[in-house]
């Protein structure tokens, strides 16, 4: 938050048929392969992992048959997990299991976007909002029997910042901006200097954390499992001890990460057989309630296999891949304020009707324009012809939410997403306005004999390709000739950074649940590709957009009001809307759709719906499993 030019915080999403994102694209979710994964803030890795096609899915599971069938256990499915070390996990599959075993100071209850206390009993902030003092919940024990103390958190946070195994140190050092010192790494760079983190144990039950700058989403960041408590010294006296000779992790570390993780969560680790299954069982000394015996995950990567697994009632939650998904089988019974829809899906292949719900996730896919190269009338013509609603229906069978703002609905200022879009979207809300597109192009001097040529560059994704073809045909009528080009993801980013793209496709997933995490992408000075730290490739300036100044000013307002106070939030919210509107005017990003999370589950499972942070952040201790039929 502090320094927004930090490249390390980028989160581009690749929506290919093969990746998480894609899944999201496909609207999927719920889970398994990254399914809902998309919802997770820390899920960058999802984009690279896994399986093929736009599956979708869910946490399926194994009920039974051979696994002994303790009917108290949740039977779910997961995709390939990599580690159980909270600071090393970057994928949702691991995150899903880690969330059950470890607790943090704060938590996203059921994966919703607002946080509540978890291991923190209470907290206080200093007047300048830079110092947070947390009082820990009494009587919390680790699975090894030790009592939780403030020193455990100091150790855990130090690991997050300085462990050679940590892949999320920027969460605490940059995003949250906890005070620390750096030292030369001997190669001309700067690294974190061990033991200098601004986190202290005031007494056994009190932690004090100092930030470099006030930050509105401090508590939200602390809810990530990367910030989870592990027993002091669990993997070595100091984080540096975790690496043995030859750059390989020590035996103790490997044990912790694969076969003996210890946390304070509702479930104790039981087994994890690589590529096969993982299981956790209820922790008897948990401070809260655990209403089931445990959770078993079968690891299944293939969407079709997963589908069969669910249809055979081996899992309580089933997965429906896009190929098997029939939108007409959904009947929605009600919808809540945050856009979650509840109903049923069925009858499925096995004759049963499953419960259904969907929720928008903190995930936006967009078409970006290099404004230096693509003229404003052309960008507006794109916006006119784009009908987000039909795109979502045609390309994703409706498994996505049309996007008008860059900020996803769950975190849109004042929950005003839909109303603002309906009333003010300038390019036709759920409409394809080819006439207006032609008109704006003709006013700019283009015609049938004088077509404008534009290059569309996308990463390898069948869904983007389908959309591109629809757009290309429509734009033909507006005197625009669009060439579709595909590039590997890394090439796309590299060319973007060099300013060599015209129209390109990308997505963004939240680091923390507030609009500024998204809107930093359209802060004009940060879109200048001649700078090394550009985070999007718009080259937005007053030369090529009338609203560039408005966006710059609004971002200035945001930067000056980062404190977690109501008045600052008020100021930020107004500025967010200003930025969205500036983007509408100049069409830097043409927002296309938001990922949604879906879940299909059998009647015998009673489970709360999850929120915008995604199902992988949901803890299962309140779910109950009845008799399987």
């Amino acid at each position: 938050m502090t320094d927004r030019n930090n490249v390390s915080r980028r989160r581009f999403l690749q929506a290919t048929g093969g990746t998480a994102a894609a899944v999201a694209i496909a609207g999927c979710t719920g889970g398994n392969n990254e399914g809902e994964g998309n919802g997770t803030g820390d899920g960058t890795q999802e984009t690279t992992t896994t399986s093929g096609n736009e599956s979708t899915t869910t946490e399926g599971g194994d009920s039974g048959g051979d696994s002994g069938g303790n009917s108290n256990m949740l039977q779910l499915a997961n995709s390939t997990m990599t580690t159980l070390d909270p600071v090393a996990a970057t994928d949702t599959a691991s995150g899903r299991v880690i969330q059950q075993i470890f607790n943090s100071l704060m938590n996203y209850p059921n994966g919703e976007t607002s946080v509540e206390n978890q291991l923190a009993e209470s907290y206080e902030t200093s007047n300048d909002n830079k110092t947070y003092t947390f009082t820990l919940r009494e009587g919390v024990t680790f699975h090894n029997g030790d009592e939780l103390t403030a020193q455990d958190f100091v150790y855990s946070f130090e690991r997050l910042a300085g462990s050679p195994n940590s892949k999320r140190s920027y969460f605490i050092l940059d995003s949250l901006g906890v005070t620390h010192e750096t030292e030369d790494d001997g190669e001309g760079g700067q690294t974190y200097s061990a033991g200098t983190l601004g986190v202290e144990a005031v007494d056994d039950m009190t932690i004090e954390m100092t930030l470099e700058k006030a930050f509105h989403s401090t508590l939200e960041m602390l809810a990530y499992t990367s910030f989870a408590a592990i027993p002091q010294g669990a993997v070595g006296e100091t984080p540096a001890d975790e690496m043995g000779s030859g750059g390989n992790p020590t035996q103790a570390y490997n044990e912790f990460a694969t076969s003996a993780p210890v946390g304070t969560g509702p479930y104790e680790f039981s087994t994890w057989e690589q590529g096969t299954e993982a299981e956790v069982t209820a922790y008897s000394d948990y401070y809260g309630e655990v209403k089931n015996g445990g959770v078993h995950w079968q690891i299944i990567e293939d969407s079709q296999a997963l589908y069969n697994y669910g249809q055979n009632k081996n899992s309580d939650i089933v997965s429906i891949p896009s190929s098997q998904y029939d939108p007409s089988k959904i009947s929605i019974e009600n919808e809540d304020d945050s856009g979650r829809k509840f109903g049923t899906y069925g009858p499925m292949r096995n004759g049963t009707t499953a419960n259904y719900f969907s929720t928008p996730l903190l995930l936006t896919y967009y078409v970006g324009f290099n404004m230096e190269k693509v003229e404003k009338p052309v960008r507006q013509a794109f916006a006119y012809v784009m009908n987000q609603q039909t795109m979502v229906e045609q390309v994703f069978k409706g498994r996505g939410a049309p996007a008008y703002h860059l900020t996803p609905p769950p975190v849109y200022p004042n929950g005003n997403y839909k109303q603002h879009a309906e009333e003010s979207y300038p390019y036709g809300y759920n409409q394809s306005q080819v006439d207006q597109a032609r008109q704006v192009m003709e006013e700019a001097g283009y015609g049938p004999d004088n077509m404008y040529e534009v290059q569309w560059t996308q990463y390898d994704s069948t869904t983007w390709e389908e959309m591109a073809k629809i757009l290309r045909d429509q734009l033909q009528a507006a005197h625009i000739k669009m060439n579709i080009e595909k590039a590997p993801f890394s090439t796309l980013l590299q060319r973007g950074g060099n300013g060599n793209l015209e129209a390109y496709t990308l997505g963004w997933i939240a680091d923390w649940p507030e609009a500024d995490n998204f809107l930093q992408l359209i802060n004009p000075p940060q879109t200048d590709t001649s700078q090394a730290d550009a985070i999007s490739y718009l080259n937005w300036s007053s030369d090529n957009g009338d609203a560039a100044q408005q966006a710059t000013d609004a971002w200035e307002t945001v930067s000056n009001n980062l404190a977690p106070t109501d008045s600052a939030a008020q100021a930020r919210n107004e500025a967010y809307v200003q930025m969205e509107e500036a983007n509408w005017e100049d069409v830097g990003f043409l927002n296309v759709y938001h990922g949604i999370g879906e879940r299909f589950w059998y009647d015998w499972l009673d489970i709360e719906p999850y929120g915008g942070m995604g199902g992988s952040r949901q803890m299962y201790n309140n779910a109950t499993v009845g008799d399987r039929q």
Partner: protein
Amino acid sequence: MSRWQYFLRRLLLSIPVVIFGTTITFMIIRLGPLDPAAAILGPGQASGPRAEELRRQLGLTQPLWEQYFDFMLDMVTFNLGNSWVISSGTPAYELILIYAPRTIWLGFWSVLIALFVGIPLGFYAGLNPNTFSDYTASFGGIVWRAMPNFWLAIILVSVLSQSEQLIGWDWKTWLITTPVVTPPRLGFMTEPLALITNPSESWPQLLGAIKQIAPAAIVLGSSSMGNEMRIGRTAVLETINSNYVETAKAKGVSNRTLVWKHVFRNALIPLVPIITGEAFLLIGGSVLVETVFAINGIGYLFFQAAIQGDLPLVGSLMFIFILILVGTNILQDFLYTVIDPRVGYDES
């Protein structure tokens, strides 16, 4: 040159083949577009100081020739290294030990089905040429051969999952309850003695494991089954019409001795390379079938490692595959030298 000299020469020649194959592997994984730093950190963070630091830690910034020699030395000394991405820090050995048994179990049964169904059928057809049963067997062989693995697998999984609705017979609960997809439990493999000491528990487990692997093994074995049938038939026909069989018949060798002693052994010769060639089923050929049946075996591990840029794991697995392939080729030559005395004699 004696045939043992010939065999020895083949053995020595395999060394440069292994080195060449391993070198190509190195080139593909290190010179290709795989970026393990990006895979570990996530694609958005593939640049910047963190990624550079990680590349340095992983040794990717050293000169390529140095990396090459390190890699070759590690492989030759069987120092297979640790996984970087899939299961960060876990030795490749351990991962192979976890994933390989299922693939071997699957490969074992699919080769067995091919051998014990394909070859007898082929021989039967060859001994009774141009009869109705020959046509039935031959046609069956062509059909099995023609059905693509991935298609057959998907159909089979679907049908077995819904067998009760479709044909009124429930596969899942037949004999012993097993799920249609997911890997079989192979616990009995580690304690084979339990089959004797604790039969009530271990035999059902063995039965379950066989039942569970059967559909996948049939799919995987189907094409080679067809192959072996066709080639077996041709080989028998060819032998049965050769002069020495005629001679044997003329001097009154009984039909039984004729078939077993003169026809069978000679007809086996063209089948040897086909059977050893099936070793590839244990590796690449099983990836698709493993995926559809959610049997996460070695093929799955290799595929995951490849798409996630887990360089040491990909390299190690590839090296092992090369060794297996070269090994089976040597085995094939060995069988040749044993079965066919003509091999190795220099004609010139």
